[in-house]
């Protein structure tokens, strides 16, 4: 049960039950679909980018407590970041949920460290990373569109 408490910390249960920034916003500049074929969960991420800065992230979807909490925390942590910072954080987050890491002093990672418990559950890592991959696709899609114009 202690191992489970490690995985399902209060903050995860809270964000899982009451996800922040949930729903389709009125305005956004990029969006993408995410799908986890393992469990059939779906997530849709909406991003607003302004002058290379993420000014808003929202999401919709259905999923387990881990995936909903991860998406919810992601929307909070990424708001206000530059595209590059967002990408770096995505990389760090991936490291955090798959390997023993030491990102001491990184405020954003400190907020996400509650999700590091999935390391012990290989089948659940994708639950934690689904929204992040989706957001990454949304931003890259936006960048590509911008290039062609």
């Amino acid at each position, binding site marked *: 049960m202690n*191992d*489970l408490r490690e995985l399902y910390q209060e903050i995860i249960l809270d964000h899982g039950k009451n996800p922040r920034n949930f729903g389709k916003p009125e305005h956004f500049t990029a969006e993408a679909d995410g799908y986890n074929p393992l469990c059939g*969960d779906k997530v849709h991420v909406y991003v607003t980018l302004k002058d290379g800065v993420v000014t808003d992230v929202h999401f919709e979807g259905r*999923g387990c407590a881990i995936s909903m909490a991860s998406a919810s925390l992601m929307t909070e942590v990424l708001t206000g970041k530059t595209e590059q910072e967002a990408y770096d954080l995505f990389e760090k987050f991936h490291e955090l949920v798959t390997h023993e890491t030491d990102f001491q002093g990184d405020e954003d990672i400190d907020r996400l460290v509650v999700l590091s418990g999935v390391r012990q559950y290989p089948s659940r890592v994708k639950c934690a990373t689904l929204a992040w991959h989706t957001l990454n696709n949304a931003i890259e899609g936006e960048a590509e569109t911008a290039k062609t114009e």
Partner: protein
Amino acid sequence: MASAALQQAAPTLDVARVRADFPILGTEVHGKPLVFLDSAASAQKPQAVIDAVRHCYEAEYANIHRGVYYLSETATRHYEDTREKVRAFINAKNTREIVFVRGATEAINLVAQSWGGANLSAGDEILITELEHHSNIVPWQMIAERTGAVVRAVPTDEAGEFLFDAFEKALTTRTKIVAVTHASNAVGTVVPVKDVVAAAHARGIPVLVDGCQGIVHRGVDVQDLDCDFYVFSGHKLYGPTGIGVLYGKRALLEAMPPYQGGGDMIETVTLEKTTFAALPHKFEAGTPNIAGTVGLGAAIDYVGALGHDAIAAHEADLLGYALERLRGLNDIRLIGTARDRASIVSFLTDGVHPHDVGTILDQEGIAVRVGHHCAQPLMDHFDIAGTVRASFAIYNTRAEVDALIDGLDAVRKLFA
């Protein structure tokens, strides 16, 4: 087997003895005794099967057919003896109708590609149901894509029932084959395949039955069912992985072109022209899963000795008990409530996602399957992403059902 006659009168399973036959059931998971409730995905193996595979490799292994020495002849005999065991197990007319394949998936692909490739053309219809496992959907979609045929699915209802009227209505003059599961792996619904076959045959349409979840729970008599193809996997029947069976009526198999080419499936080969071997070897290209086949034979012996009636009675008891206990919980919603069902229960827990339930139960040593169970169209029908599924086999007990209920209590506490 001295007690076999007595058991006929009131078939019972000596579950303690059965459990002792399965070494893995003595192990612990996360410090808790293993409660294995995922046999519908793959069953555990009795010592007899493990020993048979081991003995094959240790003492009686060589490549089969054409060997003129002792070991090859012995391995060939065991391989072909298993074919006869399978024939008897499903009461096929002839061993030539028993083709060894990797599993039910390969069997369906074989029929779809070989029979479908020769018999389907643009506008023809392949009739399946919403209850199917992906393995009885995707192979048909692939051959439909190639031939211009169309895959149609008989809808189900909110209980997950097989709707016979809807099925009959879906049979058209363009329907060329019916492919239907014997029992739904996701929600347990048992399909009245004998009636399905009769209705299809009345219109001259052949029927393939996906027997993966049927043969493990009930006796199967392919002549009585009169189905044209019956397929199943060995690993769900307490046998090894990588071995399965395609039963096909001889006339149909004779008329079908080979699925794969290679060694063992030929009569004569020149660089210009090949003539193919007789059934069943025409469909068994290459060196087969020899040890796996021997293991399947041991599994059939094991299940046969327990007796279908005793197995069915035991599993029906567990199913009834599980349903009774789950219905007593007001935060559980059963998915699939068909009248006739295999010992499979699918459900959702209020406010807790199946994957979270699965992880928490795992910490209690309880193995259940969570997700879409390779039946996404059926999940779409219920408008859900997936379920928690517990399936009960010969070695499960009422105490394990109780453990599951206690585990759900742990889920509730954590998410309270």
